[in-house]
């Protein structure tokens, strides 16, 4: 049973749509800027909620930005697909913010006005944000949402692949979304892990992350579905795994046990050896803890034969639940165009490992298999492997 990727959709701080994102990646253009409004370095998507509502013909209403950013990416990946009764179709999204962007607005307003109104709490659900996307695209049947913090996007992709593999679905739109909200901006601030300058993943001088927002979706199909839709395969999803670090709610273990397990088991699933991997898109948030722990896990898996690797978070910011899906799209673009994307702002290898990520796009090359890492709170570690068809 092969699982093909047949559609891609993405919106990030470096652009709206696959073409714009690829262009910025190749031009090494970061989307992270100082935000006067929030006094933070942020990877913001420069589309207002109102303009997205207008584009989709949604009556001006109180929609979560999670739904709206998700809609843009999901529609691009879904493209001209339509419902077909002979195909079992589903959508699996993922988010950590969910409806919190609306909830916090109403909640603070209610406090301000000393209102008893508690409407906001009803909007803090994740499932509803996915339902709106499904509704607009006309997808029925299986509508699901996963929430495992910053590994969510990878886990939604994995869930879709497993449901196709088990014969539960023929095709499924999978992805992740997170908007910027006070909740996550203040949350990461409370953890004291922001870099006030551009983040520097894997650099000795790294001092934290930049937050971003965005969404990405992939359309996954089995052969039966492709025969009906006529879509051709962009690449295949061949390996996946989720494992747990079981070390701390927010910090990663020193040896990156969970991360190493996820990579090892994803390789097993794809029936590949470490030497088959041509590029690793690392989680690489730019925090002291993540980048060291992930480096140790990479060392465990690849030993001295470390493939080209980079973190693309200095382009987009850390987009939380969307990151796994956004970086899956970047991996697939790498396979498609034969390029790996640079780890911006890297200068000095960290003392503990001496590892140097890719800092400029080298000559085009034939990439066969690429691996994407995503890790989240709760010690949640996921790896995906995409392979040329």
């Amino acid at each position: 049973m092969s699982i093909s990727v047949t559609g891609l959709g993405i919106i990030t701080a470096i652009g709206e749509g696959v073409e714009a994102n690829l262009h910025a990646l190749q031009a090494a253009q970061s989307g992270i800027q100082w935000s006067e409004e929030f006094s933070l370095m942020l990877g913001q998507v420069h589309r207002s909620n109102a303009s997205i509502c207008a584009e989709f013909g949604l009556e001006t209403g109180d929609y979560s930005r999670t739904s709206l950013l998700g809609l843009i990416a999901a529609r691009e990946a879904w493209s001209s697909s339509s419902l077909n009764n002979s195909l079992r179709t589903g959508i699996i999204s993922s988010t950590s913010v969910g409806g919190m962007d609306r909830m916090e607005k109403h909640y603070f307003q209610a406090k301000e006005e000393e209102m008893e109104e508690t409407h906001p709490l009803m909007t803090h659900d994740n499932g509803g944000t996915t339902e709106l996307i499904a509704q607009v695209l006309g997808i029925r049947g299986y509508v699901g949402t996963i929430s495992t913090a910053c590994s969510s996007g990878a886990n939604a992709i994995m869930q879709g692949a497993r449901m196709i593999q088990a014969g539960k679905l023929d095709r499924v739109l999978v992805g992740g979304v997170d908007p910027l909200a006070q909740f996550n901006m203040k949350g990461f601030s409370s953890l004291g892990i922001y870099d006030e300058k551009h983040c520097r993943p894997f650099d000795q001088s790294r001092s934290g992350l930049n937050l971003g927002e965005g969404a990405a979706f992939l359309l996954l199909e089995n052969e039966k579905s492709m025969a009906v839709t006529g879509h051709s395969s962009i690449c295949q999803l061949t390996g996946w795994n989720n494992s747990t670090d079981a070390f701390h709610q927010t910090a990663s273990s020193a040896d990156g046990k969970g991360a190493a397990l996820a990579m090892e088991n994803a390789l097993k699933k794809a029936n590949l050896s470490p030497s088959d991997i041509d590029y690793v898109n690392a989680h690489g948030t730019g925090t002291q803890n993540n980048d060291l722990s992930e480096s140790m896990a990479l060392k465990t898996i690849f030993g001295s034969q470390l493939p080209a690797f980079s973190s693309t978070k200095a382009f987009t910011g850390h987009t939380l639940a969307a990151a796994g899906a956004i970086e899956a799209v970047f991996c697939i673009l790498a396979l498609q165009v034969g390029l790996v994307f640079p780890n911006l702002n890297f200068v000095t290898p960290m003392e503990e490992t001496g590892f140097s990520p890719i800092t400029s796009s080298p000559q085009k090359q034939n990439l066969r298999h690429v691996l994407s890492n995503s890790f989240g709170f709760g010690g949640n570690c996921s790896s995906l492997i995409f392979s040329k068809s």
Partner: protein
Amino acid sequence: MMFVLSASTISYQPSFRNKGFSAEISPLDPESELQHPDYSALIPPMYRRRMTDVLKMSIACTIDALQQADLEQPDSIIVGTSMGCSLFSQRFLDKIYASEGRRISPTAFILSTHNSIAGQISLLLGNHGYNMTHTQNNLSFEQALMDAMLMGEEGNRHVLVGGADERNLDLYNLRTRLGLDTVHETGGASFFVLGEKASQTAPRIKLLEVESFAFVQDTSQQVQSFLHNRDQKPEEIDLVLFGSCFPEQQQLSSIFEPRQLVDYQNFCGSYLSNSSFAMAYAVDILQQGSFPFLDRPVKRILICNQLIPENLGLILLERQSDDHETTE
């Protein structure tokens, strides 16, 4: 298909560590309260500290379910929760509001993520396996169960799966205002160990099938085709536990006899992952093998969750006949 090796539920009924509770329960009244066990006897102090209800209930049920199944480590941990750690989320919003730019303590934020429940369980057990959180309104638990069945097909021998949500008074007030006060807004947690092989001692309870449906237009047609696809006839279902936002409008009486239909929300109240309570209730009934007012043995139970009218969750459980020696 997997076997249900153990079930543990904390609810508004005397359900925790009380086999046979299905015969003792009574409909909720406005004075009903969540029947918390003594957590100090169950949860290590470092986990109990600062935890809100949803975490305490989930961890207590996990410990109990694993003990009942005589299991130290499941291969996977899968949780369905609609609102997750809603009280921690609200607490963090309060802190943001009060902070006026000052640094805020991260504790509430750290534990506000939906996957704190499954994550804390993995930390408690030192479990490195698959760890997943499904959050799809009233279908969160069904989707967690579907995932558990997939893990079984993929070779997991034991899966810990549960559903949990905590009562949030602000939600309750809102529902009351919306006129939905016919149901008692509650919370609860129910966890299960599913195994590829049946246990040798207890009655063998099989989880035959589970499915979730979005944007359902014709409930009775969907239920009938669900049963048909599994070669089951409506008359082979002994009992239907249903949860509905509008119980008087449920469409199941066109398929089943009224005495077969039990509104499970009468016993657990309303929260979006309460089909997990219904499953614990069903497992207990199947273990007893009978149900009051039903003059026949209870072998097959269908759980029909439609707390949100367009979202339908269906769970089919069966007690294997006692003379059946093979475990497939």
